[in-house]
Structure formats: structure tokens, C-alpha cells
């Protein structure tokens, strides 16, 4: 302590100009060093992000005509399950029975489907990523008759919207398009 104070005193007694210029050089050197270290570190860090082949993962095509009314199937897209449900008129009616604006993640049912009878959602709970139950006949479907996530108890409705439990958002609707009347392509 004592030494450094006496040092700074002696340098200031040498005139104000010298230390100011030197300070600048020191700061500039540190800054260049930091930029250099960052430039070296970046490839080492960024290599952990998805690789080109992972990003190029193919889209998934599904023939939806085989799904009977009231039935649901699970397909794989980007390593994740996608739920496709052929909804009954009752399920559609229930999804439209409430005002979507009042929900935790406000959204109308219409905004989540391209055809009302066909609901396509990513089957990954928006809480911490479990696959909710409700696809198979006999599964627990939760209090809103859609899906129920057993991990921490999230209830989704017949539109895949979060109604109760810790999940913050609705089940995600993946990008998809109709290739023909019967076939959709996800991704």
C-alpha cells in the first residue's frame, strides 16, 4: 500500500503529461488483449451451438387423412414429438367457448389452427420440456381435456393452451403447410 502511494506521488511529480500518455497506452493494450482473447474464445464457445447438419434437419411429412376423428398421433420433428389431433366438434366448441384474451398466454383457438378439426402442436411442455400425456386413449388428459403434463402438473386445453400449472406458454404450433388435401409438411 505504502509503496504504491509513494510511486504514484513520484510519477505525478514528474509532470502530469507523462503518466496520462502512459495510462492511455496501458488501457489500450489491455483493451487489445481483451479483444484478442475474446476472438480466440469465441470459436471455442460457439462450437457448442447447433452444427450445420443439425440445423439442416429435414422437415417431416405426414398423411393426416388416416387419423380418425377423436384420435391423435405423434410424429417426430427435429428430434421432438409433434402431436396431431383430429378434434371432435365438441372439442372444437370447447376450445372456442372461452375468451382467448383472458388466458395466461392469450390466444384464440382460430389463431392456432389452419383447419379447425386439425390441431398440430409440438408435444413438449413449455415448462421444463416433458412430453405431456393425452395422446393415447386412456391417458389422463387433465382438467381441460387436452393434455396433462405429469412432471409438475400443467393442464392444457383442447387447443393446447396452458390453463393451469407452472408452464408459462401454450404448446407451440410448429410451422406447417398443406401439400395436398391429405398431407402436411412440418418445418
Amino acid at each position, binding site marked *: 500500500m505504502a509503496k504504491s502511494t509513494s510511486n504514484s506521488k513520484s510519477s505525478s511529480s514528474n509532470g502530469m503529461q507523462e503518466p496520462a500518455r502512459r495510462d492511455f497506452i496501458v488501457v489500450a493494450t489491455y483493451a487489445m488483449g481483451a479483444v484478442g482473447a475474446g476472438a480466440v474464445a469465441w470459436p471455442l464457445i460457439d462450437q*457448442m*451451438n*447447433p*452444427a450445420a447438419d*443439425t440445423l439442416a*434437419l429435414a422437415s417431416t411429412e405426414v398423411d393426416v387423412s388416416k387419423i380418425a376423428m377423436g384420435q391423435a398421433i*405423434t410424429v*417426430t420433428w*427435429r*428430434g*421432438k*414429438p409433434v402431436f396431431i389431433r383430429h378434434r371432435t366438434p365438441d372439442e372444437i366448441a370447447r376450445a372456442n367457448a372461452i375468451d382467448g384474451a383472458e388466458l395466461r398466454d392469450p390466444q384464440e383457438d382460430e389463431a392456432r389452427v389452419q383447419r379447425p378439426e386439425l390441431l398440430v402442436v409440438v408435444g*413438449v411442455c413449455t*415448462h*421444463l*420440456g*416433458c*412430453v405431456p*400425456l393425452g395422446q393415447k386413449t386412456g391417458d389422463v388428459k387433465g382438467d381441460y381435456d387436452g393434455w396433462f403434463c*405429469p*412432471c*409438475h*402438473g400443467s393442464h392444457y386445453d383442447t387447443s393446447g393452451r396452458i390453463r393451469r*400449472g*407452472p*408452464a*408459462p406458454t401454450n404448446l407451440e404450433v410448429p410451422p406447417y403447410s398443406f401439400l395436398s388435401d391429405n398431407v402436411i409438411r412440418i418445418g
Partner: protein
Amino acid sequence: MSAAKFSNPVVRWIDHRLPVFSMLDHTANEYPTPKNLNYMWNFGSLAGLSLVIMIVTGIVLAMSYTAHVDYAFESVERIMRDVNHGWLIRYIHMNTASFFFIVVYLHIFRGLYYGSYKAPRELLWILGVVIFLLMMATAFMGYVLPWGQMSFWGATVITNLFSAIPLVGESIVTFLWGGFSVDNPTLNRFFSLHYLMPFLIAGVVVLHIVALHRFGSNNPIGIDTKGKQDTISFHPYYTIKDIVGIALFLLLLAVAVFFFPNAMGHPDNYIPANPMQTPAHIVPEWYFLPFYAILRAVPDKLGGVLLMFGAIAILFILPWLDRSPVRSARFRPVFRIFFWLLFIDAIALGYLGGKPAEGIYVTLSRVATAWYFLHFLVILPMLSVFENTKPLPKSISEPVLATTVAAE
């Protein structure tokens, strides 16, 4: 610390150039240790032994393990069935992981009871919490390696915790996964890090011990040693005491490895990972359950994650929450009651974390979580002000001498 102390000329020759023998002599023979340490002071050496066992068995396992989603599960089964003594090595690795946590939890509660986190040992305590965090990360990634159902879904749920971070959360999760779900890139990096982290732990352990040797061990009375009459040399007195603990530890470990190797694991991890189906009831390894209970107690995603990490983060600032100048709970009658309540609270959280998140369990988890934070944030600071502590003895020797005088 002169080399002349060694009678063996070879030792003297080496020590003059590379003072490793002086260092050993300093830590074992010269190092003054309070003479009143009880068996709660055994868990440090046991933790060190556990780390060594984990590293040795782990390196051997890695010789037969394949970090690929298509082969990982089979390679572990091959270790269990075909590799010579593979079952033994894997069961030792698995069970020592659990024992490691038992030992470290007892080590931590020892510190809480005797006030070992107080000045001048704050950094020693903080380094301990760092080791605890690194251990949790290591064990979490190790559990992913066999690629069973619990491996996969544990990895999914825990990595998804980071998605709770506003704005950048999703990008962080993708970054951790190296893809859009837990998959082969994830398994590969977890293996790489699982191999690395125990050595980082070993490095922090060295710092932990350097900090320990600065002021020496705390002791059951919690007052500073006042000179030679209060201390004895570490060797042979505490080396012998540590060996007694080690013998008992190894005996219990052997019972677990040979008779109940899967008692502390989950049967679902013997089902190969299936990314399309979550097991009906997922639970983390038992040593994470208290924190898992806190996570689930909060009905809000970000809130739950923050409280869970907060439960550990609070340990970092503990030396500044408990300002009472008296270290040991022996002289703090009210603190002692609250210490045991916290202990019960932690066990209760562990129990609740293993139960389904519904009904009464959720309510109880909330109460237990609230109590945990209340203890650290309200009760400890208040006790520092209001508690009437008992008078402290003048030295470690004093109570002992007093009783011998009284007995005569």
C-alpha cells in the same frame, strides 16, 4: 522447515531442491490442530477419499464407455455383464457418488452447527459452496451418461431450467443442447465435461485446504486456539481418527455396493432413453430432491428457478447473515433449536421433492420452502441481535482442566 530434519540422505537431497517433504511434514507433523475435534470433523477427509474413488473408477469406466446415443446404454450394459469386474467398478462409481453427497451434506451441516463459516473462515466456506456446486454439475452430467429414461428426462428438465431466463433463455438452452432437443451432441459434451469437472473440483479442494491451513480447523467450542496447550499435531492423532472414519465409511460403502447397489438409484434408468415418452413420475437423484422440491413449490417458472438457485446462493452470503460473534451452537441455545428445525426442514424438502407435485405435497413444499428462506434471511440476522448466548470458556483447555480439578 529445514531439510536437516530428515535422516534419509536421499530425502534430504530431494527436499533441498523440491521441498515436497517439508510441505508434507508441515501439514502432517507441524500443523497444530485443536485437540478437542469430534467425529464431525471426519467428513472432510471422507469427502477427499470419495473424490479419489470417483476419479479412479471413472477413468476406468471411461475405457469401456461409448458416448453416443445409439451405444451408450448398451456400452453400460456391457460394462455390467461382459467387462471384467465392470459391474463392481460401475457399482462403486454409482454408490460412491451417493456416499459423496451424504458425506458432503454432513460436512456442510457440521459447519452450520459449529459456525465454521464465520470470520476468519468466510473464504474457506465459500470455496466449499463452490465445490458443492461443481459436484452437483458433475453428478448431474454423470447421471446422463448411461442414457436411460431418467438420464434423458433429467437432462431435459434440468437444461430447460435455463429457458426461464427472460429473452436469452431459449438460445442458452439450444446452446447447451447443441441442437433442438437433448440429443447426441448433448451426450458428447456432457461426457467431456463430466470427465473434466472432477479435476476442477480437485483444484478447488487444494484452495479449500490452503484456506483451512491459514487459521486451522474450527472446533466444537468454536473459540480460537490460544497456544500449544490447546493443540496437538495432526499426525498421528488425527490421521488415526480419520482412518477410523474411513474404515467405517468403506464398510458401509461395501454393504451398499454388494448388497443394495441400486437402492439409491431409480429403476427407470434401466430403460433405454425414449425421447417420445416421459416416464409417469420423474424424479432426480435423491441428493437433488430438496432443491427440486423448492423448484416445484413455486407455481411460476422463473420464480421457481430463481428460488432453487437462490437456495444455494444464500449459502455464499451466510457469513454476513449470521453476525453473532459466537461460533458454536453449544453456546447459542436459541440458535441450536433453529439449527435442528432447519435440519428437519431440509429432510422434509428432500422427502417432498420425491413425491408427486399435487395436493397436500405442494402445500407442504411451500411451507418448507418458506421456512428455509426465513431461517437464513430473517431468523439468523435476528438471532445475531437478540440471542443471549452462554458464557464462553477462556480456552479450549479450560473446561477440561476445570472438570479434572473438580473430579479430584
